[in-house]
């Protein structure tokens, strides 16, 4: 059982002061094996905070990130899964699933994690799964109205990944989960 935290679009301090207190109390160091971040942190303090949660931290560049040296895309392998990470402002039209599917094919990954729209989605298609963890702070978005703070925790176990999405709605943390299985061929089902 490998836990992967996926989050992004915090936009601290441009659009939000901090992570919601309820999220902060849940995110405890030492429990998570990997952290992947779609980008738009935006400052070093946030990077340092994420590093305390888990030393294995992967970040891709968002258009507002102060750090310009984050890569545009990143791929990594966790267990049997290949994961791809990209902020998503590079993929036009923004949030378009078919265009994101193209990126997924290009990176050749089972799970593609992107952000930018501040809207949680988890979509399964022929080439794999596309996950958007939303905005961890519920930051303003020109694309999405009424953004609720959200993040995703993936539990990777052999050929199965359970995606838990945590959303802060009206002051309460609501959890939902989705199951994905990968078949032994290169396709995910």
């Amino acid at each position, binding site marked *: 059982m490998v836990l992967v935290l996926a989050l992004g679009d915090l936009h601290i301090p441009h659009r939000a002061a*901090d992570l919601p207190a309820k999220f902060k109390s849940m995110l405890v160091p030492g429990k998570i094996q990997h952290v992947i971040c779609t980008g738009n942190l935006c400052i070093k303090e946030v990077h340092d905070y994420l590093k305390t949660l888990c030393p294995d931290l992967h970040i891709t560049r968002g258009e507002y990130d102060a750090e310009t040296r984050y890569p545009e895309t990143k791929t990594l392998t966790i267990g049997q899964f290949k994961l791809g990470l990209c902020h998503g402002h590079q993929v036009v*039209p923004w949030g378009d699933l078919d265009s994101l599917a193209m990126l997924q094919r290009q990176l050749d990954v089972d799970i593609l994690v992107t952000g930018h729209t501040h809207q949680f989605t988890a979509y399964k298609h022929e*080439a794999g799964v596309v996950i958007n963890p939303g905005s961890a702070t519920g930051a*303003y978005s*020109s694309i999405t109205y009424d953004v609720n703070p959200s993040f995703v925790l993936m539990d990777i176990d052999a050929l199965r990944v359970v995606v838990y999405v945590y959303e802060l709605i009206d002051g309460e943390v609501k959890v939902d989960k989705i199951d994905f299985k990968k078949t032994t061929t290169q396709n995910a089902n």
Partner: protein
Amino acid sequence: MVTTEGMEEEEKWLAEGIAAIQHNAFYMSRALDSDNLREALKYSALLLSELRTSKLSPHKYYDLYMRAFDELRKLEMFFREEDRHGCSVIDLYELVQHAGNILPRLYLLCTVGSVYIKSKEAPAKDILKDLVEMCRGIQHPTRGLFLRSYLAQISRDKLPDLGSEYEGEGDTVMDAVDFVLQNFTEMNKLWVRMQHNGPVRLKEKLEKERSELRDLVGKNLHVLSQIEGVDLEMYKDVVLPRVLEQVVNCKDEIAQYYLMDCIIQVFPDEYHLQTLETLLGACPQLQPAVDVKTVLSRLMERLSNYADSSPEVLPDFLQVEAFAKLSSAIGKVIEAQVDMPVVGAISLFVSLLTFTLRVHPDRLDYVDQVLGACVKKLSSKAKLEDSKATKQVVTLLSAPLEKYTDIVTVLTLSNYPRVMDHLDAGTNKIMATIIIESIMKNDTCVSTADKVEVLFELIKGLIKDLDETATDELDEEDFKEEQNSVARLLHMLYNDEPEEMLKIICTVRKHIMAGGPNRLTFTVPPLAFSALKLVRRLQVQDGDMAGEEVPATPKKIFQLLNEIIEALSSVPASELALRLYLQCAEAANDCELEPIAYEFFTQAFVLYEEEVADSKAQVTAIHLIIGTLQKMTVFGVENRDTLTHKATGYSAKLLKKPDQCRAVYACSHLFWVDDQDGIKDGERVLLCLKRSLRIANAAQQQANVTRGSSGPVTLFVEILNKYLYFFEKGNPQVTPAAIQSLIELIKTEMQSDATTPDTASDAFFSSTLRYIQFQKQKGGLMGEKYSPIKLFSFTCFDCTFSS
């Protein structure tokens, strides 16, 4: 200082004294055993003679004293049993006065006196009076203090207190009090006299010795506090005035400090509250060297604890006007002690403020008063330079922040900013940071423009340069941290009511504009997003009030936004400004304000043309422009055409060919929006795709020429995917034939010798083909659509499935 040689001598004398006491005690015991009064008296006198020594320091003398004390208990027991020695207590009392030397005589007298009082053959008060006066015979400080201490010890349980067996006609509590007070007074005099007993060079040694003896004096006060009959009335009318009289008149710093503290610790808080004026009245009369600050702080702390533990006494505090009295006393002390350094005065205010916050937290007028007194004190000096005093001021200002979790309460204290004005620029910033931390920690929201104004006045050290040299000295990292905390703060300034929110935004804008170019990159974005959030809120609200002049409209806010973002040009921060302009364009689009949206796009393009020079930055910027433009629904045909033309034009002019290619095919989406009313211009889509194909070709050829081999075929695969995208959306211009030939092209390229093999693009192509296959197998409409597209056997590509 006592030399080791001196110490060794002392040890020797002490040992000698102890030996002598033990020697005589042995014989005295023998005499007691044989009921021999004469012998007992003789040896006890000899024993007590050892206490006549002048050679021992108080610490060592105590050792000797305790041994004598133990022996005298045996003697006392013997005295009590009249049948053993046959002498009446009255006779005994007379008999012991024949002892040769005065000190042993008085010890024996006290011992008999104890028995005498117990026998009740005479009123306790008479005996006590006699004893306390007789002790005057010993004027040597150490010996006198121990003698009187002995008297106090043995008389303790024999005082004519309320309800004691010694109370009677003529024997009242008053007599007990008189006795103790007299003993106390005499002991204090002796104690004070010690200070002048030696040469000035031994002053330190003297003070140490005095310190060792102080509890003997203080004990009397403790006894007074234990007397049942000393109620509030008596304390107020008799005890306190007389004790204070002695304290003030003795004019000795050590005594005054110790005794004031003793009074405060020993007597009940209830009494202090009721005698506050008297107690405080003594403070200005004390010697200047007395640390009256500590005395007052301890008093205030006790009273605060009292209030904490018994909330029902709070009305008493108000009734005796405790705050007013303390405040006035502090003022008098500061006035009286002209040489008191500033740090002393400030720490007094800190103590008073702590008291006020604990006892009267709801009385903001009191809190403000304390701050006001501090301002007055600080005004009398020039700028504060003493670092200790500065620290105290910071403590003073931090106390209300900790107490009142809602910063708005602190913002109502009119003297708070005035105190801050007296801090130097550096400390001002420290204080400002503390204020911001307090707001963030407590998650408080500042919700009116007035309060925001006051807040910004307080934190002005962070918002702008207070003096010329400020920013040069600050470390870059620290500066960033500082400004980021200001940025975070801006999100705590909020009001649900749009009109008030707009006022807040205007107030903040006014202040941050004075911050200079270094600060704007930090402060402009949060303000801009605050404004955008307000726009959205107005947009979502239903309709306008018919006929009413609405002060807050999206148009007004967009004007404001334009000015705010424009300020970034002074930094300059073009890339940031470009992004913000695009955000505004989107927001204007949602409000259906076409001209405003167009204006924002113009601003963004101008920045792109004139300021964004870095090629990587250009790539990101053009994609942001394309992405934003793609979502615009408000533009009419003309405006839209102008902007899309510009976008595609700049896309083709990017420096590197692959970047050009990608930007151009991204532009294809500008001509096809999937919504119901969205534009669906199939021809122009195809034009873009063809153009990007040409660029990809050119890129391959260029690579051929410059490197001897073509680059990977990735670009072609990407374009293929785009073809598939529009094919599926139903663009009639994208035909199966076109797709087919593109597939062939890619295959050919991949097989060509000139092409550099690349696993990534191979895998990409394979998965694309798999996708096509998947779609074909779907059946239904999609399957039908894809049926003309033929994929040849996969055999040639087996080798690419290497994983």
